[in-house]
Structures are given as C-alpha cells and as structure tokens.
C-alpha cells in the first residue's frame, strides 16, 4: 500500500524534533523529517559537512531523534560502511544512512560514494540536492543546472549537470531512485523500498533552498513540483536485478514532452535564473533532453 499524507501524520516516531535551525522553506529539513522518519526506529545517520550539520542544532538541543554522527566532508559513505560492518559483526540491526548534500555526494565525496557502491556496503546514501554548496554561501556544485547564478558562477553556470543517479546505475548499486520534496509520500515509499534491498542503495532528492534559489520560502513545494512537471527532474526508480527504470506514478506523464510545462515556468519563479540568455535556456533544454535520452534506454 502506497503511503498517504494521512499516514505521514501518524508517524510513530519523529526523526526531526522542534528546535532545529533550518531556514523557512528548507527542502532538506522537510525531506529529512520524512525520509529518516520512515525508518526512525532503526536509523543511524552519518552527516558530512553540509547544511544538515548546522540545522540539526547543537549541544543538548540537537533536534534529531536518531543516532547522528557528524563527519568530515568527503567521508560519509566510508563512515557509514564502518558503522554497518561493526553493527553486523555485533549482531545489531540498523539502517545506516549517509545523508549528504550534492557537494558531499557529487563532488568531494564521489570517490567514497562509488567505493562503497563497488563493495556493495549495505547502506543507503541519500543525496539531497539543493544544486549548490548552500552551507558555504551558495557556490556552484557538480549538480548545478545550466544557467544558474551562484556565488561562483555569477554570470550563469555553463557546465552540464552531473547526474549522480546514472553514475550509480552504471556502478551497479542495488537500488537507485530520484525523489522530490514536492511528493513526500513517494519519497517515503522509496526510502522504505530501498532498505528492503541488500547492498548499496542510492536516492537523490530534489530539495529546494529558498536562499540559494532566490525563491519565496512559501514556494518551496511549488518550485520542486515545477521541476518535475517541466521534465527538469525525472522521478524514477531502478534496480540492478531488473536493470529497468520505472517512472514514478507522480512523474510518469512527463515522459511525454507534450505533457510538460515549459521550463521557463520553473525558471521564472526563482531569482537564481534571472538574466538567463536565450542561448543558456537552449543549453538547459538540451541538458534536460540528454537526461531523458539516457533514462529512456532503461524504460519499458
């Protein structure tokens, strides 16, 4: 039975308590609450340097109600693997989750990520992507879309988006999925499904950041939904047993370009794309097409 919004209101245990420091409209905190909340009774989270190391709070006031280990930027999967191996050796059950941003996943952490995937360490990596290094003030990351104005690409990012889910598919992760803060029940189902797999699991969540995206904090869900509806962010699942990708119910109709809204609708409600040239918009469309072309190879 797919998770419903009503189910979410009856979560037996909250992973995110009151008193966290996340900004209003933070997609990461929302995703944490529900993704980790779905497995809270047996979750152990490993957090590299990122916004989550800050918004969890501090001292006795830490707002995460699950064991939380904060670690160096490029090492979340290695630490998670060590924890999982130790707990296995001691006969203890746990869902060990490396919870990292796009910087800690796609850039500085990618060798560690793929290393853990190669070894099929029995952990789940959740990458929440706000498309920038938010913690340090919004610099470009490998997951920044073409055209985005960041603090290190003030005239627009030119580099293509690094599609980490595809990298993980190529490296034979046991389960790979994309999710969005606009579709929380779908995210919860994917987390629950992921932990039913042995070996290395990977989920990337499109997680709004009103500060870096220069969007209204009240629009966080709206922006994320538009990313799906414009085809910018395909929602799918894949596993290595079938080597087939399946589009998620919520996003499946956007496979057909005719059903997609123009990408400009997503661009226009965010300040980070202000001033994009026609050329840049064209390149962004092409980059989105590139992603779908890749994904199509795995769709029925």
């Amino acid at each position, binding site marked *: 039975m797919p998770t419903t919004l009503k189910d979410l209101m009856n979560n037996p245990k909250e992973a995110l308590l009151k008193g966290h420091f996340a900004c209003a409209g933070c997609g990461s905190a929302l995703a944490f609450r529900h993704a980790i909340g779905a497995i809270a*009774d*047996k*979750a*152990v989270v*490993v957090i590299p340097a990122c916004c989550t*190391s*800050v918004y*969890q*709070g*501090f*001292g006795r006031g*830490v707002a*995460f*109600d*699950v*064991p*939380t*280990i*904060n*670690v*160096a930027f*490029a*090492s979340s*999967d*290695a*630490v*998670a*693997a*060590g*924890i999982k*191996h*130790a*707990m*296995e*050796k*001691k006969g*203890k*059950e*746990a869902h060990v989750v490396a919870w990292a941003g796009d910087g800690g996943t796609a850039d500085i952490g990618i*060798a*560690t990520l*793929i*290393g853990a995937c*190669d*070894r099929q*360490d029995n952990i789940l990596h959740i990458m929440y992507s706000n498309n920038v290094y938010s913690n340090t003030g919004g610099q470009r990351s490998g997951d920044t879309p073409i055209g985005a104005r960041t603090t290190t690409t003030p005239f627009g990012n030119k580099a293509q988006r690094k599609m980490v889910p595809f990298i993980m598919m190529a490296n034979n992760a046991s389960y790979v999925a994309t999710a969005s803060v606009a579709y929380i029940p779908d995210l919860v189902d994917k987390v629950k499904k992921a932990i039913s797999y042995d070996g290395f699991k990977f989920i990337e969540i499109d997680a709004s950041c009103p500060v870096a995206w220069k969007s209204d904090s009240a629009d966080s869900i709206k922006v994320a939904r538009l990313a799906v509806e414009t085809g910018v962010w395909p929602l799918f699942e894949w596993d290595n047993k079938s080597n087939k990708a399946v589009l998620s119910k919520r996003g499946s109709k956007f496979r057909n370009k005719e059903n997609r809204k123009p990408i400009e609708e997503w661009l226009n409600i965010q300040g980070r794309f202000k001033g994009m040239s026609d050329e840049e918009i064209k390149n962004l469309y092409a980059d989105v097409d590139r992603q779908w072309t890749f994904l199509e190879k795995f769709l029925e």
Partner: protein
Amino acid sequence: MAEEVVMLTGNHSVSEAVKRVKPDVIAAYPITPQTAIIEYLSKLVDSGEMDSHFIRVESEHSALAAVAGASWAGARTFTATSSQGLLYMGEWVFWTGYARLPVVMAVVNRCLAPGWSIWVDLQDSMAFRDAGWIQIYNKNNQEVFDTTIQSYKIAESKDIALPVMPCLDGFVLSHTSSKVILSDPEEVYNFVGDYSDPIIEIDTGKPFAYGSIVMPDKYNKDRKDLMEAMERAKAKIKAVNKEFSETFGRTYGNGLIEKYGDDDADLTIVGIGTMADETQQAIDMLTSEGLKVNSVRVRTFRPFPTEDIIDIAKKNHKLLVIDRSVSFGHEGHLQMEIESVLKRNSIDTPVIGKVMGLGGEDVPYTRIAKVAKENL
C-alpha cells in the same frame, strides 16, 4: 597453541599481533612499505582464520573514516598506512584523535615526496604529533609485535580513550626479518581483554548526536580533557609495559623511555626509532674506548616523557639529540621538545642537535660514534 619463535618481518610482526587481539573491523589501503601488513590480514580474514570484517576501501581517507565509524559503533578496529597515505588521511587523523576513538593504526615510517622515495624517515608521523594520538616508536620487530598488543590495552582503557599509533621504521624493520617470539594467542588475547564494554557505542534505541556544532566553552573543555588524558596516558603506558613484562617477560625501559649504558656520563645520546637502537652499539664501542657516554631511546613521542627527560638532563653534562625528522625553519622534532622541556624547567644542560638519516640515508653506529666524539 603455545609460544613460537620465528624469523619475521616487522610488517608481519604487526599482523601477527593484530591477529591475536581479534579486531572486529579492519579497513585499509595499500602503500609501500606498509602493504604487507594488510595483505597478510586480508588473507587471514578470507581464509576464515580471523573473524573480522575487512573493508577494502578506495583510499586512506576512507580507511580511517571507516574504522572510526566502526569504533563509534563500539568495535575493536585496526588500520595501517605510511607516508603519503598518512598525509592523505590527514583530516581523519585529527578527527579520530579529537573524537578520542580507541583506534590502533600502525604507521610504517617512510619519507615524503618529492622525489619519490620509499625509504625511512619519521617526517610522516611527526607531521601528526599534534593530532591527539599516542605515538610509540619501536626499535626492533619483537617490540613491534609487543607494542601493537600493548596499544589496544592503552587505547581501550576508559580513562585514556585515545587512538594509538605504533610506528616502525620502513624497510629497516618492516621488510627485515629477525627473531620474534610470538606469544601464545590466547595469552595475548587475555592480556588485552575483549572489547565488550566499549568506550562509545551507537545504539538505535538510545539516540545521541556526535560532533554537532560546538560553542567555544565546550570546545575548550574537550581539548583540555584530551590534554589530561594524554597526561594520564604516561602512567598507563608505564603500567601496561610493566604488566606486559610480568606476563610475557619482555620489557621496554619504563615504557616511555629506554636507557642504555652507565647512568653517569659526560654525554647522553638521545634518539628515537631504530637509529636509537643503532646508538646502543655506538655506546658499546665508545665505552670500550673508555669514554663516558650513555643513551636514551624515546619510545613514546606523544605523550612526551617530560619527567624522564628532566631526570636525565639533570644527571648529565651534555645531551646529543639525533633526529630523523625536521621542522624546516627550526630544527629536529626531538631536539625541539627536549629544549622546551629543559627551558621550562630552568635546566641548563647543553643540547646539541643533529638531523640524520632522512630519506633512508644509512646511519651506522660508527657514524653515530664519530658525531658523539666530535661533541664530547
């Protein structure tokens, strides 16, 4: 299985010790001259002779990160590295020390590039003397075996809770076979004890957060605690050395330093690692020539044996300190520490420093004797 007497390299002396203490989790990455340690262990794990998890990580950074993770989860752990590998681990060396995880990591000392060289000096481990690790430098393969065992007993003591780095000179020890008494596995395990009551242990039923944002008051308290644990470690290392000698009949000075020769001397040669062992031969030679010289081997560089150095300096006319590592723009590391101890305690015994043996340069006892004579 009882005690065995074998010809063994320093690397395999580490492995044999690790086999006996039965770590739960090992993670490592190859680098010369350390590699043989982990190759041997991976074979023992895969053949079922050892019941450990072996994580074949993709870098040293991940090796230490993984054993740190395992240590947080309450496991007994092991890793090993050398040189560039230790530098690459750097961020985690400090992290592990500051987190006070009882990790044991063998460091097979090798100089740093450029140019590429695989031979010994102590520049690699000395670069991490401030990272909150206990560092124990060894003189021969027997000591390497014994120190590795002792390291676990020191690291895992609840009143210490510090990572320990047993250090052995690359090639001089790591790849050279010599006689080693391998103590009975069960006796060794009993000496160290099991690690069923860990210093820290992740438990899904009892959530806690480790390493969150910290304010300066708490930060300073943690670092002060670390300083105090290091201070307590001196007595602990001595006690473990004593207990070890009572159990196995082998001893290394008082645990912190090892003296050689007559107490009353005109010149004391202070050294570290195998060069300090070589120095003992120089002492024999000089003594037979009627000269009044003795030597001191610093076994633990961290914690530094301050009280012993004061004691020695007070009794002697002159100290000749031989370093195998150097702080550019200043002087040898050992010399630096000794001078600071003397200065702080208003002892005016002259100290002469000599940096030798960098990049594996051979330093025979005859050369040490020559330097001693020049400074008598």
